[in-house]
């Protein structure tokens, strides 16, 4: 039996183009890793060296100069707690919007999304003043609250899009059996929307971890996150690229590894529940 000859030329072009685009996207990360293992002199050399003897002195210097573990601990605490807190607030909000729609639900969702499009700096002055007057400047509590609030619109939207796909008949059946709101949520919504909760949680964990604006403005030595650690390697004498790269690599490594293992859920989350 003969098969129809297929033209592999477009496939080759498409594959090459895909690889080129991927390389373009990954290039800064590859450059970061390379620079982290160079000496300061090698890092600023022109033309840049692709082959060199790698050194770990930058990582040692970062460890000596800054308390990496403190910054890492702050990042873990703020991102995990803000994600859990956000899920606790967003889940009932999304539940009511998905299953008890009113005329204003759509407008409310739109309004919530529009706040995400507002530049964060627009709220810098009031939030800074509130944090200062309530004693929450440079505290983990202050950062956690701000991270939760800034991610809340995305969380409500994502959970809403997952809940919307749960057939309301299932809930009606549960109500017929005498389920209360809590048991309806616990025994029906939670198992059916577990994927949605996981995707939303993972995405918001990554967003909180990468949050730099509020971390840089509202914290310094005590509650600084890893974004603050990176920024501390920028000095008035100029940039020390190799040390900055080493600090950046140390800051992003945990979340990159975490993202690698949970990429399936993350992709689901990023598509806002559109692909299932």
């Amino acid at each position: 039996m003969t098969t129809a000859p297929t033209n592999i030329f477009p496939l080759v072009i498409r594959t090459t183009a895909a690889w080129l685009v991927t390389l373009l996207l990954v290039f800064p990360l590859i450059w970061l890793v390379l620079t982290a293992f160079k000496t300061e002199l090698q890092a600023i050399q022109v033309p840049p060296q692709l082959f060199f003897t790698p050194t770990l002195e930058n990582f040692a210097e970062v460890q000596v100069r800054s308390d990496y573990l403190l910054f890492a601990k702050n990042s873990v605490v703020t991102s995990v707690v803000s994600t859990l807190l956000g899920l606790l607030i967003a889940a009932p909000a999304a539940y009511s919007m998905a299953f008890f729609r009113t005329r204003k639900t759509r407008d409310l969702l739109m309004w919530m999304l529009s706040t995400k499009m507002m530049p964060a700096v627009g709220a810098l002055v009031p939030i800074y003043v509130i944090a200062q007057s309530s004693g929450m400047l440079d505290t983990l509590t202050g950062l956690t609250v701000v991270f939760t609030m800034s991610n809340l619109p995305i969380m409500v939207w994502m959970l809403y899009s997952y809940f919307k796909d749960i057939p309301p008949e299932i809930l009606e059946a549960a109500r017929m059996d005498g389920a209360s709101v809590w048991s309806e949520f616990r025994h029906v919504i939670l198992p059916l929307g577990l994927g949605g909760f996981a995707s939303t949680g993972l995405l918001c964990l990554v967003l909180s971890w990468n949050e730099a604006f509020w971390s840089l403005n509202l914290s310094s030595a005590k509650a600084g996150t890893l974004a603050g650690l990176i920024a501390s390697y920028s000095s008035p004498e100029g940039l020390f690229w190799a040390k900055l790269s080493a600090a950046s690599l140390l800051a992003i490594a945990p979340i990159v590894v975490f993202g690698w293992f949970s990429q399936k859920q993350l992709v689901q989350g990023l598509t806002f529940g559109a692909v299932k």
Partner: protein
Amino acid sequence: MTTANSYPFPRERKLILGVLLILAAASWALLIWQSAAMNSQAMGMGLTMGMSTGLFIAIWVVMMIEMIFLMSVFAEIFTTTGGGPGNASTNVAFLIFKQALMNFDVGVASAGALFAVLLANIAAVFLIRLIGKNLDK
């Protein structure tokens, strides 16, 4: 007397350029809207440069999203250039930060913040409308 340095927004030319860019984007949006309404594809000369209207709108939406997010770039400037040399790499977000937390001029920073929000909202309003249309589908 108001000197060039004491003027609250010494980079007003760039801000005006930003407004012009937003206006250009908004007029493109209107053009696409028009082209979709008049079925210009059937007339053989589309304003969407031969692409389907859907694809053109998709590209435009991506551009708008990028514009909204790039307008609030802060950490990269903070870490690498610090807004300098001088004010060469200062954007609206960094200018507000400098006014508020480095020059302690909360009034000017708040005015700048309102301006930034207004700019982003002009860009976002079309986007939100598009998303809103798809929400009920």
